[in-house]
């Protein structure tokens, strides 16, 4: 079952690769250069949210590889 899930993830990654035919030239990157066009545009909000949901739900994970705290209560 786990193998299937990782295969799905690999397919998604491969999908990104296949769709990479369109070229975006450096002079077309005006919108992409905005700070608000990042995956995490407000890192301070995301950090707070990660801590809230880590303490309140059974799942963790996402963009970063480390964390800390008990979350017991």
């Amino acid at each position: 079952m786990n193998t299937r899930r990782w295969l799905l993830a690999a397919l998604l990654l491969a999908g990104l690769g296949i769709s990479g035919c369109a070229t975006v030239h450096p002079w077309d990157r005006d919108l992409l250069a905005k700070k608000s066009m990042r995956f995490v545009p407000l890192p301070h909000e995301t950090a707070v949210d990660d801590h809230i949901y880590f303490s309140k739900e059974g799942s963790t994970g996402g963009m970063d590889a480390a964390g800390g705290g008990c979350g017991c209560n």
Partner: protein
Amino acid sequence: MTPRWQLETTGLIYGEESRATVVEPVGRLTRLFENGRALSLGLTLDAITGASPTGALPTGQVVTTTSASGHTTTSSADATPTHPFQDFRGAVDLGWEEPLGTLVNATTSAHYSQEKDYASLGGGLKTSVDLLNRRFTLTVGGGVNRDRVFPVGGTAQGLASDTAARIPGDNPKQVVTGLVGLSHVMSRRWLMGVTASQARETGYLTDPYKVISLVDPVTQLPVAQVTEKRPSERKRADVLGSSVYHLEHDILYVNYRYYWDDWGVRSHTVDVKVRHDLSETSWLQPHVRLYGQSPAQFYVFGLTHGPPLPEFASADERLGPLRTATVGATYGFHVPGSPGEFTVRGEYILQWLVGQSAPQAANTTVGGNGLRGAAQAAGDDQGGGGRPFGTNIGSLLIGYTVAF
């Protein structure tokens, strides 16, 4: 002049209806060097007070609970029993970002946090490589935490009477994480990314303060309670898909995460935000997040009094068939004549448990409906399959970011 410093500050006020209240100030100062190097120092303080569910079912009687530190609370007959607590957490983290040439970026981080009953020491490494004319970015990272758990009043023996003697001392816990991600510039206005991560936790993973009700098989009412016990290993994995799309004026952020672990928890998370510029100096960002998880294999509402107990069991609702819905909005603005950006965010979070047959009473003979019946007999007026353990949560987050 290029800014040499950046300061990010936030203040969180978080409140659960009849439960915990959290006040959390956070500050991060970053020194920006030439050629992209950056050193950051973050400080977080958490002051938590209030009450947390014990895991026990409503008893049908008024209950007074005393915490290990001597605080007491009283629960009404139909209320979910809670234990009072008060904690203060301090955390410090350091980060160093180092460009390696023009296409590779490496980030090293370390953190330490300490609270009354828990300490966490950890570090991580993350490297990103831009590929194919910067149309792709490949990220690989990992981290290790070496934590210690030292419950107030000592460590309870698992699945033993909650009044049994507790063992003093520390319990080690280790977390090893790894991730790989790929992001891609799909078009002039569209970014997409996929990140897969895995974590392995070992050591003391039990919640030292949670208990489980023992239910009389005839009356279906709680008659006693035992401490909970979880396995000493947990393997977690998740895949996160992210999209950022620049519409004509607005920006649409969509994230979807699928999570699974070897305790049997599976979850889906969808998170959508839209940033709408109100003027050149202000913007509004509505936010919706929906979350649903399946229960862990050893999750129970309660256990039958009498038969042998299972090897592992927990009534912690965070390991149950939990749902979370979040709605809110962030308002961002610049004050004329002063540097930096302010943000104010308000959010409402609703959490509840679902499923008539959700309780998996391990090796007991009492089915889920029986235990649900016990909760209802004890005065739960929310109805079966509704949200007998639902929680209303509100939060206010104020932020200020400035470069100088």
